[in-house]
């Protein structure tokens, strides 16, 4: 108690001095308000600190909806009133210590205002904030990283990846990075939410969102092992004062609520806004109604300040799937066969086929086997009892072998931050019968197709949303097709082991011309497909699928169609690819004649963000039965 008494003496003296200065100084609060506050309240940093953002149909206001984020009752709508209330709270606080001190609740505001109004803050020492100090590891956060999680097809909100921040403590607290802290932004969604309701509310801002904080190991495990998503870490080259300012603002918004919007004001947007508080940074692509996480990390990677790149280091955190594929690829043929036999139980750990192997080889097989069971059992909380038993047996066997691993290091795939931009617009010409020649336009907000999958994407797969195809036939311009969402998923199936089959599935919700070349046959359609793939060579993909379509009953083609499709994709060199496609269509509920569509499309990457495509389509049953198409595209 005596120690605490003496601790508070200097704090008390400081505040007494501050109050005296306020009373005696000619630059008292009232005069500051008149001369300076109106200008300061419009300063972009102050507006960023309050999270002021332009609204569509109303004047700018703070994106934070939690009342406790504001000191003034009108602070959400009036930055000047909030500044006055903040200064009043800072300068009139009776205690310099304690977590409820205004300077502890709003440390970034304190930092900035004390820089802008040094005379007013001259007598006020920084408040002592135990919880904030603990959160920053006693001021041992030395840098900040942006974490990018690659896309995840298990959840519509995660198709396009995810970003969060990682707070890197000084060496000794978390040398591996697992013990560093992470800041995440997400929507607050009730358990067991209906998927359609989830999508609707996510798109229209029906959910609240907010920042949360947890050890990085949690996300590393969740994304990497449960969702099988690679993580990329971009360590930022920020000065220590900038790190501290971002941290201080993060503390202010942690636990506060926002309105969550899936397309624009999402995780990537909020992370970028949080970082932009450091100053001189513009990390959100402007003038577009969506924020794609990969575009965010690409902007970060392309940003330089004072001649120095913003990103100082790039680290790769492979998922369980990537680790398994890496280990599997490093096995020799005999080890791969042994792995397959252990999985199929045609050999066990007591069998000669296993025990006769040298220790080093056994360890390599066991390490791959543990990865395999975790991979096929993913997400592990939902793994079957059989898989859990098999994993436990491999684990138990591994403990019987000596420690140490002689696995080769895993190679990392291409960095998503140096890939092409995620949105696409193409302009070209189509050549069919005479009256059908004309302009062709293709607009794709996101993300990739079978020929232009880049770093962070799944090769030979496609994932698009809101893609629009326009065609001009002489005097008429029409929508050829509009894909609300289109997915062609390709499971890599690198090992071909049970549970790792190279299967395909597709889903497309679209509106398209029932007959190619028609301008008045636009028909809503739901398309699904399932199949498998082969890779006869590393640069050759062969796929075979069965498909089904359901479409509007007004169509004369009937409501239901079936089909069989074969495709070959060859990518002989980086940036060049060709796709051959043949699709047999059966019109199950109409008298329309069954037919076969064939096409070939070639793509050449001219620069990272430019390409050239040539395509030929033959559809004997269509108005536009043959068409050549030449198109140049730009990624943005």
């Amino acid at each position, binding site marked *: 108690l005596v120690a605490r008494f003496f601790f508070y003496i200097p704090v008390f003296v400081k505040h007494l001095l501050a109050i005296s200065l306020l009373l005696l100084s000619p630059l008292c609060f009232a005069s500051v308000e008149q001369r300076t506050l109106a200008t300061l309240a419009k300063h972009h940093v102050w507006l960023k600190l309050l999270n002021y953002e332009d609204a569509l149909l109303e004047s700018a206001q703070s994106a934070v909806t939690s009342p406790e984020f504001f000191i003034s009752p009108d602070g959400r709508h009036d930055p000047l009133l909030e500044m006055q209330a903040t200064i009043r709270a800072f300068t009139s606080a009776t205690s310099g210590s304690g977590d409820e001190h205004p300077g502890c609740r709003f440390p970034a505001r304190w930092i900035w205002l004390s820089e802008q109004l040094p005379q007013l803050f001259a007598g006020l020492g920084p408040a002592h904030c135990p919880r904030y100090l603990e959160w920053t590891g006693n001021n041992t956060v030395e840098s900040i990283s942006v974490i990018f999680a690659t896309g995840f097809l*298990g*959840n519509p*909100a*995660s198709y396009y990846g*995810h970003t969060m921040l990682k707070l890197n403590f000084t060496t000794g*607290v*978390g*040398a*591996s*990075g*697992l*013990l560093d802290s992470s800041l*995440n932004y*997400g*929507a*607050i*969604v009730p*358990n*067991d*939410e209906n998927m359609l309701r*989830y999508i609707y509310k996510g798109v229209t801002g029906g959910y609240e969102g*907010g920042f*949360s*904080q*947890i*050890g990085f*190991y*949690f996300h*590393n*495990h*969740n994304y990497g*092992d*449960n*969702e099988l998503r690679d993580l990329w870490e971009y360590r930022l080259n920020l000065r220590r004062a900038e790190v501290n300012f971002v941290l201080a603002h993060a503390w202010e918004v942690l*636990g506060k609520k926002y309105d969550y919007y899936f397309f624009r004001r999402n995780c990537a947007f909020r992370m970028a806004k949080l970082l932009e508080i450091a100053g001189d940074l513009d990390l959100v692509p402007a003038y577009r109604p969506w924020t794609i996480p990969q575009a965010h990390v690409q902007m970060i990677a392309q940003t330089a300040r004072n001649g120095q790149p913003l990103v100082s280091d790039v680290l790769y955190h492979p998922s369980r799937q990537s680790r398994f594929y890496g280990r599997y690829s490093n096995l020799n043929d005999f080890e791969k066969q042994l792995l397959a036999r252990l999985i199929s139980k045609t050999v066990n750990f007591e069998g000669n086929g296993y025990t006769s192997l040298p220790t080093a080889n056994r*360890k390599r097989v066991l*390490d791959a086997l*543990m990865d395999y069971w*975790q991979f096929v059992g993913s*997400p*592990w*909380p939902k793994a079957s*009892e059989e898989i*859990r*038993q098999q*994993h*436990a*047996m491999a*684990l*138990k066997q*591994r*403990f*019987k072998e*000596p*420690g*140490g*691993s002689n696995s080769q290091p895993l190679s990392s795939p291409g960095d998503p931050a140096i890939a092409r931009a995620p949105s696409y617009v193409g302009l070209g010409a189509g050549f069919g019968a005479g009256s059908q020649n004309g302009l062709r336009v293709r607009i794709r907000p996101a993300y990739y197709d079978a020929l232009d999958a880049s770093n962070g994407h799944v090769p030979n797969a496609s994932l698009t949303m809101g893609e629009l195809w326009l065609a001009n036939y002489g005097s008429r311009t029409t929508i050829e097709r509009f894909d609300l969402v289109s997915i062609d998923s390709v499971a890599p199936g690198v090992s071909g082991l049970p549970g790792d089959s190279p299967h395909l599935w597709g889903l497309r919700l679209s509106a398209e011309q029932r007959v190619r070349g028609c301008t008045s046959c636009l028909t809503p359609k739901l398309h699904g497909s399932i199949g498998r793939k082969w890779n006869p060579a590393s640069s050759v993909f062969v796929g075979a699928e069965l498909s089904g379509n359901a479409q509007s009953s007004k169509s004369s083609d009937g409501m239901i169609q079936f089909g069989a499709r074969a495709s070959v994709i060859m990518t002989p060199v980086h940036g060049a690819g060709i796709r051959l496609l043949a699709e047999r269509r059966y019109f199950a509920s109409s008298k329309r004649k069954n037919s076969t569509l064939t096409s070939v499309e070639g793509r050449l990457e001219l620069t990272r963000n430019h390409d050239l495509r040539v395509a030929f389509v033959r559809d004997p049953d269509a108005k536009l039965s043959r068409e050549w198409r030449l198109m140049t595209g730009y990624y943005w």
Partner: protein
Amino acid sequence: MKKFLIAATLLMAGNTLTAMASDKVAGAGPNPYSDCGIGAALFTDTKWAAVTSNVIWDIGTTAVTSATMSPQTCNGKSMKVAAFIKDTYEQLVEETATGEGAHLTAVLQLAGCSAAQLPQAASTLRDAVGVVVSQDGYSAMPSMEKAFQVYSAVDQSATVCNI
């Protein structure tokens, strides 16, 4: 209070767990899974459900700590170790089996081991966890019980680091 009641109910029902709690090595620290009531707070399906929808809100060690920790018996370090084991269990145990890896290093760092002490602590931990996974019926054990036993192993192995 509700979490305490749930934890107490679970612990009373879990005879094995309770028995292990009372069998802990003399001198070892309290085990958060049993002594601090962390089990029910950490091992809930709601957390998993929240994570799958990419939504994380007020979960993790902060919430658990404030809900269950007793300053006299359950310090922040033990809670952090317990949460780490629970959240990364599979990777941690696999790395313990191989005797190396970031998770193995991290958990021993959390438990108070310096870089110089890590090799010995890791070796001791490998032996102890090897016994845990070799038990009959290991794969069918509830997650909480597995984490409990590995926590005990970490706690014992790290005694060399806290002398």
